[in-house]
C-alpha cells in the first residue's frame, strides 16, 4: 500500500507525477458533471482531530468527485471525546474496509502510526507541527502553473516557522523542485537548527526584494502557549508583508486562514500578485490527484459504465 505521509519521503519525480495528474483533473472541474468513476465502490475516511476548513472540505470533495463513498469523522462529537485512543478509533474505522484514511492530528507522526495499524492507504493531512504534504503539493502546483518551473527561483517563507507544519513541508518541497529557500522571522519563531534542512535563515525583511515568491505564514496563536513576540503590534510592524514591502513582480502566497493585519496587510491579500485564491482552487485538484495516485489501479478498479469517460491512467501502469 502506498501512503502520503511526508514530503520528505517524496522524490522530485514522485512530486511531479502527482502534479501532472492534478493538471489532468483540472479539466474535470470544467465539466457540467464534475465527476469521474475512478474510485466507485471504494471508501475514503477522513479523520480530523483538528479544526480545518480548506483541507477537510477539499479532501471530501476530492473523494466525491472520484466517486468514492465518503465517511467524514471529526474528533469533536465522536468517540474520541469519550477517550477512545487513536489506535482503537483506527481499528473501528478499518472495519469499513476503507481504501484510504485521510488524517489530521495535533501530534507529529500520527499519520505514520495509523499507516502501521491499517491496511488502507494513509494520507497525512497535517500531523502536529511536523508535515502537511498535500499543502506543499498544492503550493508547488500553483507555482508551477504560474512560473513554469521552480528551478533556480528564490522563495522566502516569512513568519511563524516554529509552529508551522506548512513551513517544513514547503521548504522541503520547494528545494526538491529546485528552488532556493530562505526562512525569515523573529529568532523566537525560527527553530534552532532549521538551516540543516538546506535553507537560509534571515531575521530581517531587508533583502526580501531578492525573492521571486513570498510565502507568508499564519501567526499560529492557537499553538502558542506563551509569548514568543512581545506584541502582535510589534510583530506586524516588523514582519507584516504589505504592498510597500512587496514589489509588483513578486508573487504572494499564504496557506490560510489569514490573520488580516497581522502577517499580511489587507491590501496585499487582495492585490493581483496574491495567489491565495489559486492555492485554494489547486487544493481540490491536487487532492484528487493524491487519492488517485495512491488508490487507482491498486485493486478493484471500478468497471466503466457505457458512455463514461475513461479515467486517467496512473503513471507507471499499463493503460
Amino acid at each position: 500500500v502506498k501512503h502520503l505521509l511526508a514530503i520528505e519521503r517524496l522524490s522530485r519525480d514522485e512530486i511531479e507525477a502527482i502534479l501532472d495528474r492534478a493538471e489532468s483533473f483540472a479539466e474535470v472541474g470544467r465539466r457540467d458533471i464534475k465527476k469521474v468513476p475512478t474510485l466507485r465502490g471504494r471508501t475514503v475516511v477522513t479523520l480530523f482531530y483538528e479544526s480545518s476548513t480548506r483541507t477537510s472540505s477539499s479532501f471530501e470533495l476530492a473523494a466525491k468527485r472520484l466517486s468514492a463513498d465518503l465517511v467524514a469523522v471529526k474528533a469533536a462529537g465522536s468517540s474520541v471525546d469519550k477517550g477512545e485512543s487513536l489506535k482503537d478509533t483506527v481499528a473501528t474505522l478499518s472495519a469499513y474496509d476503507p481504501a484510504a484514511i485521510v488524517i489530521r492530528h495535533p501530534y507529529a507522526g500520527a499519520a505514520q502510526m495509523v499507516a502501521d495499524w491499517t491496511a488502507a492507504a494513509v494520507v497525512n493531512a497535517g500531523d502536529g507541527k511536523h508535515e502537511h504534504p498535500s499543502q506543499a503539493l498544492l503550493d508547488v502546483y500553483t507555482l508551477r502553473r504560474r512560473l513554469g518551473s521552480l528551478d533556480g527561483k528564490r522563495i522566502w517563507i516569512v513568519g511563524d516557522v516554529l509552529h508551522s507544519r506548512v513551513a517544513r513541508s514547503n521548504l522541503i518541497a520547494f528545494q526538491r523542485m529546485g528552488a532556493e529557500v530562505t526562512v525569515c522571522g523573529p529568532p523566537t519563531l525560527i527553530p534552532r537548527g532549521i538551516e540543516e534542512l538546506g535553507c537560509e535563515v534571515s531575521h530581517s525583511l531587508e533583502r526580501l526584494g531578492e525573492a521571486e515568491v513570498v510565502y507568508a505564514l499564519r501567526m499560529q496563536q492557537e499553538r502558542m502557549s506563551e509569548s514568543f513576540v512581545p506584541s502582535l503590534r510589534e510583530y506586524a510592524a516588523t514582519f507584516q508583508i504589505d504592498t510597500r514591502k512587496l514589489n509588483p513582480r513578486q508573487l504572494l502566497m499564504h496557506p490560510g486562514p489569514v490573520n488580516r493585519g497581522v502577517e499580511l496587510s489587507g491590501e496585499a491579500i487582495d492585490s493581483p500578485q496574491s495567489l491565495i485564491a489559486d492555492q485554494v482552487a489547486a487544493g481540490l485538484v491536487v487532492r484528487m490527484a493524491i487519492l488517485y495516485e495512491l488508490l487507482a489501479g491498486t485493486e478493484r478498479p471500478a468497471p466503466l459504465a457505457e458512455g463514461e469517460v475513461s479515467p486517467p491512467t496512473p503513471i507507471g501502469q499499463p493503460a
Partner: protein
Amino acid sequence: MSLTEALDIRPGEAATLILRRATVLDPVAGIDGVHDVVVRDGEIAALAAPGEATLDGAEVIEAEGMHAFPAFFDPHVHLRTPGHEHKEDVETGTRAAAAGGYCGILAMANTQPPVSTPADVSALREQARAGASVAVGFLATVTCDMRGEELTEMVELREAGALGFSDDGLPIVNARVMLRALQYQRLCGGTIALHEEDPQLSGAGVMHEGPVSAALGLSGIPSVSESTMIARDAALAAYEGARIHVQHLSAAESVEVVRAARAAGVKISAEASPHHLCLTDEEVRSLDPHRFKMNPPLRRESDRQALIAALRDGTIECVATDHAPHQAEEKDVPFEQAAMGVTGLETAFAALHTELVLPGTIGLGLLIERMAGGAAPFDVERPSLAPGAEANVALCDLGARWTVGEEGYESCSENSWCAGKALTGRVMVTVAAGQVAFRLRSFSLGVA
C-alpha cells in the same frame, strides 16, 4: 556496607559452585586471568588454577571461553511499585536485573504514591525480602510527595533504611528547598541523587532541541536545561559541603560542569545511561516513542562523544540504566503524547559491549569498572571477585549473539530501546549476594 548489609534480597540457598576455566576480569581488584572461580557458601573462596579446583557438593559450570566479571550495580531503576505494578514490580524488575548481570539495584522513589515516609520504605524492604532476585536498595524522596516544597522526614527515612534520596522524575526547582536538603544531609547522611532539568527551559519539549527537532516540528529540550541546573546544584553543594549524585547526564555542557565542579573539590558523582552512550537524536526521526522517547532526551553525536570521554576519564563513574518500564498503551500513541522512558536492565551490558567495546571505543576493563561504579556513590561496597568477597558474579559469553526481545523479556514491560537489535555478548549466569539469581535457560549445567 556490603550488599546484604545495605540492601534487601529474598533469602535463598547460598551458592556453592565452580566456574571452571573462566576468564576472570576485575580491574579494580587487579584480577585478569583464567581461573577456576570457587564459590563456597556464597563467598568467593578461591581463584584456583584452571581445571584444578575441587569442592565437595559444588555445581561445576564449564566456563571455558567465558568471562567472569564482578556483577553489575545499577543505581537508577524504576520498579514502579507501589502504584504501577502492571508495568513492573520488585519481582519482575529484579528478575530483569539478574538477567542483565546485576547483583544490586537502587529503586527510585517516584512511585504512586511516592516513597516519602518511613512506612513506605519499610513496606518496600519487606517486599524485597519476599521476592527480590537481586539485592535492592530504596531511595526516598527529598521532598514530600515530590512537590518540591517541604523536606521529607529524612532522618527517620534513613533509620527505616532509605539508601539515599531522590525526587527523580522531577527536578527540585526551588533553590532554597535544595539548599535546605543539602544542609539537612549533615544530620541524616545519604547521598542526594538529582534529576537535573529546568522545567521552564524544557517547556513542553519532547526531544533534544536541535536540527532534528527543527525538522520534525517537535518542541525541543535544550541542553542548557540540564547543565544550568547542574551548575546551580554544584554551587549549592560546594557551599554546604554536601554530597550529590547527578543522574542520567546527557549533554556535553553538563559533562563540562561536572568536570569543573569535581576539579574544584565538590563532592559530586555522575552517571550516564546506556542509551545516551549508544544513541543520538537522529533515531527520533523514526518517531518511534517505544524505543526513543525518554527524559533526558537523546542528544547530538557530539554530546554522546562527550559522555564517552567522561566515562573514560571518570567524570562519569558509573553506568545507570534509568530502567523505566511502560505498558504498550502508553507508548502506542504519537511521539508527543507517549510516556517518557525505556527499559535497560536486560540489555545494558550487551549493548555497551556491542556498541562501545567491540568497535574499540572503550576497553572491556573500563566497561566492567563502570558497570559496578554505581555502588560507591551510595556507600555500598563495590562487587568484587577477590577471594573472601561476597559472591557477586556475572558470567558472560562475549561471543554469543542474540536478538533483543525474540525470547520475550523478564521485565513486565517491553519498551526496550534495544528491541529488535542484534547484540553480541550475553549474561549466562548471575550470582547476586551469594545466591544464583539467574541462569540462561538454554545454558546447560553439569554437576560435580
